[in-house]
């Protein structure tokens, strides 16, 4: 029985050491350290922060999580939050965080000259830092590019049983549909989604990479993906019978989304975090963004990665991205009504 008691005491001791250590950890976060909450994944932000520390001597502490979770946590932590910056991967999340009184407005000439205005919040609450284009991908074996034109055209009955789409639960789909609602109105958007759903070759996929695999395997012929997923696939298997097609070039342009960040309202390290945000928009950081994930740099002076530039240039949809955020719940309602899973 002594053994049991000993174990009990030992574990309680362990528990309290852990408890106190985690509290001291929070208190120890003084000094030149900026704290970031991020829904951009660790392997995509760590190299950036490392370089920032090298350049400025300011350390960066980060915690990754889901966008919605982190926003909730920031709200509840209020003016005591340890976070100086919130970073996320979708304009809808950035817009929503803006409405929740989490960000503070930053007006910086450096950011304004580095990042074009449609990729920034009109009130300076957040800044886009990398651009992801969502466009059509097709099988080079079974589809000729002449047959393709717009997102809306994929609702045409000629694609019946040939279309693969990503789930409506994914934020990229929601933002795309929000842009269609903005550009073409709710009624047209409804027709388009209805057509998409009846053209589906398979249950909507959980991942963009699954869509491309399905096209290669012959389950479907066309799909809609973020270009960096295509970039990663082509880097690994350059001979894959797939190609990107720039959608809506004669009308509104390709739907783009951003990953971005903003300084939190109660940032304990206002100066350091503003500096980090400015640095992230700089040429050096933007080049890292471009090479890490095959995204488009938000800073237009920086060239894309080699594979990315080989796809050629395209016309972007210049809709201000906060609109995508505003229309997101309307987009979801529409998709759920039309049975887009």
């Amino acid at each position, binding site marked *: *029985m002594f053994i*049991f008691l000993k*174990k*009990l005491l030992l*574990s309680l001791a*362990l*528990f309290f050491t*852990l*408890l106190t*250590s*985690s*509290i001291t*950890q*929070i208190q120890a*976060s003084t000094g030149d350290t900026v*704290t970031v909450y991020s829904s951009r*994944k*660790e*392997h995509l932000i760590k190299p950036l922060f490392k370089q920032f520390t090298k350049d400025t001597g300011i350390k960066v*502490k*980060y*915690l*990754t999580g*889901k966008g*919605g*979770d982190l926003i*909730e*946590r920031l709200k*509840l*932590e*209020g003016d*005591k939050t*340890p976070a100086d910056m919130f970073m996320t991967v979708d304009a809808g999340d950035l817009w*929503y965080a803006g409405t929740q009184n989490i960000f503070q407005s930053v007006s910086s000439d450096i950011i304004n000259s580095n990042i074009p205005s449609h990729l920034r919040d009109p009130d300076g609450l957040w800044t886009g830092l990398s651009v992801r284009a969502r466009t059509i991908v097709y099988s080079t074996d079974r589809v000729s590019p002449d047959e393709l034109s717009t997102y809306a055209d994929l609702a045409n009955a000629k694609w019946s049983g040939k279309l693969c789409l990503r*789930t409506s*639960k994914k*934020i990229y789909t929601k933002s795309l549909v929000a842009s269609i609602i903005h550009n073409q109105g709710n009624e047209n958007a409804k027709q388009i989604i209805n057509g998409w759903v009846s053209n589906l*070759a*398979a*249950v909507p*996929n*959980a*991942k963009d*990479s*699954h869509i491309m*695999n*399905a096209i*290669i*395997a*012959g*389950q479907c012929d066309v799909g809609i993906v973020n270009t960096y*997923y295509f970039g*990663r696939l082509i880097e690994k298997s350059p001979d894959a019978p797939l190609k990107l097609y720039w959608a809506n070039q004669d009308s509104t342009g390709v739907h783009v989304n951003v990953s971005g960040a903003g300084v939190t309202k109660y940032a304990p390290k206002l100066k350091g975090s503003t500096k980090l945000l400015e640095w992230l928009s700089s040429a050096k950081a933007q080049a890292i963004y471009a090479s890490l994930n095959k995204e488009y740099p938000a800073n237009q002076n920086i060239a894309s990665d080699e594979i990315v530039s080989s796809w050629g240039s395209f016309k972007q949809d210049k809709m201000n991205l906060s609109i995508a955020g505003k229309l997101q*719940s309307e987009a*979801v*309602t529409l998709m*759920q*009504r039309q*049975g887009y*899973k």
Partner: protein
Amino acid sequence: MLRNTITRSNIWVSLLAIIVSLPMLVVASSWLIPISDLWLHFAQSLLPELITSTLILLAGVAIGVSILGSVLAYLVVMVEFPGRRWLEWALFLPFAVPAYVMAFVYLGVFDYSGYAQVIIRDITGLPGFDIRSGHWAIILTFVLVFYPYVYMMARASFKCQKIQMIEAGKMLGANPLRVFLRISMPLARPAIAAGVLVTLMETLADFGVVSLFNYSTFTTAIYSAWGDFRSIEVAAQLASLLVLVAFFLIYFERKARGKAKYYSTEVTDIKPYRATGLIGWLIFLFVFGVFMLAFAMPILQIIIWSSSVFKEEWSLKYLDYFSSTFILTLSAAILTVIVAALLALPRDRVKNSKVVQALIRLSTLGYALPGSVMAVGLLYLVQNISTVSIYFGGSSINHILFGSIALLLFAYISRFIAIAYNSANASSDQIKPVYGHSAKLLGASRFRLVMEVYLPMMAPGILAGGLLVAVDVMKELPATYLLRPFGWDTLAVRVYELSAEGLFERASVPALIMVIFGASLLFIFHRLDSNKI
């Protein structure tokens, strides 16, 4: 005097049960908020489909795991066949693999673009099919992932069955199948029901597998309310309905069990049947086939994937991932087990109040809540405490508790108490009241009775529960992801972050480490278990 002490222990137990239930009670309190318009939209466009598909999924999984789990357990306990000894323990191994990892492997291999289908199409010329449409593929996935719960409990129950009853059946000329259906199965029914109950609660709370299959269950609506419509209130209201479903499941399980107690405490290791020759090898093939499909094949796939990217993915960071996982797993398991043991200690049956029993039951319902809902409930709990503290002139404690180990461990206890409690309770149920009476007659204090009689007798159940909790904590993602402190990334977090980006090959590196760690925990479990016999 005596009455007083008993009531006092009842009060302590009730208090403990209430504390453990707090996150769930906060979630349920969302019903105090007026119903939003969102309900109308959900009722029109989502709920009809997902209630049907949730029910189909639950029914399919329940039938699947109860058949597979109990047949395997029966074969392993009652029949001597080639390879039985190692298969008996190998069948536990799928426990070590997180359900979402299993799902991405199965999809990678068996979906339209998976190589298994490509090869079959090439050979036979048959058209391919989408395994994510319909219900059977996801049901099968859940069955292969969760059958060990039923297997484990049915196996323990078969081992305790009186061999004489089976011998009697044999003497009366019943064939093995009839003995199985008419004697062994009815005797093991409570154990099987308990295993099915755990499985169904896991299935209800699952988000990883259903989102990879893009299958609609109740959690779909919960996440839609929160993620799409930013309404935590509706998400919490929906989630508390899950708790209600779990409540009914437990109720039916209790009913199925009835007052029956068929256990004998003696455990024998005599096999009533020997299968030799062709039948023996057929049984081997079947059991081995399950093991291959549920463990060996997925693991082989993970090994192949991870070896192709190991250099790219491996770094010293993995020491951190592993130590975080290890420390959290260990401390959560120990704490959960302590709480569970306190709740499950035998109490004087005469004075055993129905209210206390109900509170304990309530505290185990959290298992059916999706981890992230439980975690947010916990954040709001802290927020409520802060509000009270500010009201009385204090300050907010949110920033101290959020992202502290203490809160995360509390979430684990709240979520996994059901497993530890069920296991501890099963052993305490076997303690006859006579022990308590004789101890009292001899003038022993309650403390001595607990320390020297009850706890040692409950030890096997407590240990088994602790190991199961440890494996579950190791695999846990949503609560960990939301509540962990800075720098406490676990292996599960790493798997999620990579696979969310579609980098399945790289994700298989941390997944493989998890499986090895989980398998070692199960091995300890196995050793303890076989020492008992």
